[in-house]
């Protein structure tokens, strides 16, 4: 039996891989029971609430309290440091292979199965000019942005998504339209196309299209899909202005997209999804939980992540009422299934909305 191709880019130097393995393990230690920051600071908050005799929901108040604790400062220092170390090493590792990796992309651009549709006249809107998650060059300024992102998310998911397990699981959760018809699927802001190919694996007869504003991401996605033999299309388009015909898709999917959009674009994107999703079709979203359901520590973490991890729009997303925005655009939202989550409990959520 032929070996399954591994489209994950890897550093060629053993020392880079070992270094990044360390960062992955260190990240696990910081976020989990090793350093136990979340539970310990959560307990401190609970004790403070008890002392005050009132719950703490105001972010300024929570920040004032947590910022007064040396443990918070150290936790923040370490969280920022591991992220900086990760990107510094990945960027250095792939920069050393720049010529080969660029040639690797070029070699796959015109290959099939599947198609790559880049728009030479594409204009990036101002709001995307952010170093999301502190990724050097952001999502589109470096030809190798897709490779950096793919390996960066490998470290981020701490070994849980080395072979796209998370994407396969999340795509598996998306309900079929009630009439069972799935002929076309749209993957919004598909990055390196992991959910795009997962949809194709689930619905082999369907036409599956992933769109993104980043040409480097799309080229990386196309190379990956070619290596996997997945017949999907990647196109350079905006989520808020896809250019597809009305009612074109049976399923529209947005995996951790909305928290990287300004509020104005969130509204436009839902409106656009309503336009391109056919009646009875599904709009599936997986993203951060809303502010109202977060614990005080989670509220603090969201603010920290927004300010110190290049997520400037995430706070506004968590504060907005996505259910109401969906409803105002002709979607009915089913109750989000409990337990179908990845990442820390309470941080992530599904929305499964049906187009009326």
């Amino acid at each position, binding site marked *: 039996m032929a070996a399954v191709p591994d489209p994950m880019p890897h550093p060629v130097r053993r020392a880079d891989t070992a270094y990044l393995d360390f960062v992955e393990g260190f990240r696990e230690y910081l976020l989990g029971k090793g350093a136990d920051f979340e539970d310990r600071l959560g307990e401190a908050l609970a004790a403070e609430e008890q002392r005050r005799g009132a719950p703490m929901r105001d972010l*300024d108040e929570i920040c004032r309290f947590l910022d007064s604790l040396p443990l918070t400062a*150290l936790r923040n*220092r370490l969280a920022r440091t591991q992220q900086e*170390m990760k990107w510094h090493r990945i960027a250095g590792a792939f920069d050393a292979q720049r010529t080969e990796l660029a040639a690797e992309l070029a070699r796959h651009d015109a290959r099939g199965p599947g198609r790559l549709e880049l728009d030479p006249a594409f204009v990036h809107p101002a709001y995307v000019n952010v170093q999301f998650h502190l990724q050097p060059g952001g999502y589109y300024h470096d030809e190798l942005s897709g490779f950096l992102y793919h390996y960066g998310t490998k470290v981020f998911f701490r070994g849980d998504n080395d072979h796209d397990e998370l994407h396969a699981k999340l795509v598996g959760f998306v309900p079929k339209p009630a009439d069972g018809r799935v002929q076309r699927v749209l993957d919004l802001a598909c990055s390196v196309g992991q959910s795009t190919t997962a949809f194709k694996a689930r619905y082999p007869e369907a036409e599956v299209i992933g769109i993104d504003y980043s040409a480097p991401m799309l080229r990386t996605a196309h190379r990956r899909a070619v290596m996997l033999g997945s017949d999907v299309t990647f196109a350079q388009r905006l989520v808020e202005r896809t250019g597809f015909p009305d009612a074109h898709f049976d399923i529209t999917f947005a995996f951790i997209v909305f928290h990287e959009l300004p509020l104005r*674009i969130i509204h436009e994107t839902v409106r656009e999804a309503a336009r391109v999703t056919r009646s009875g079709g599904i709009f599936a979203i997986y993203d951060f939980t809303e502010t109202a359901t977060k614990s005080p520590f989670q509220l603090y973490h969201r603010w920290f992540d927004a300010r110190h991890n290049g997520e*400037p729009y995430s706070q*506004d997303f968590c504060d907005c009422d996505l259910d109401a925005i969906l409803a105002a655009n002709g979607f009915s939202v089913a109750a989000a299934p409990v337990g179908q989550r990845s990442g820390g409990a309470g941080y992530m959520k599904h929305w499964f909305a049906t187009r009326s």
Partner: protein
Amino acid sequence: MIIQTHAETPEGGTPIAGADPVYLADPLLDASVRMLVELSAQVWVERERRLTLEALLESRGLLARADIETFQPSAEQAAAFKAERARFIEDVFKELRRIPVESASREGR
């Protein structure tokens, strides 16, 4: 190429921290923590490589462990070790250049 790394965002939202935020009571402490984590990573990289090499060499019958203790590098090897040592020191202690000359205010809300 202009990348947004400072407090202003292209379109509202939460202001982004600058390139070198200070979290602890003193920038020197921030640098110390960064160096400690960097050093830990470097130690792991070396340990992983040594474990790999020892496992390979031993499995092929090429190494008596005592040979490591008595090894004397050639002049060429010694020069290569020295250059590697300089890289190691730079990796760990590059943080020293990030300590601002002026006192900085601590990050917080």
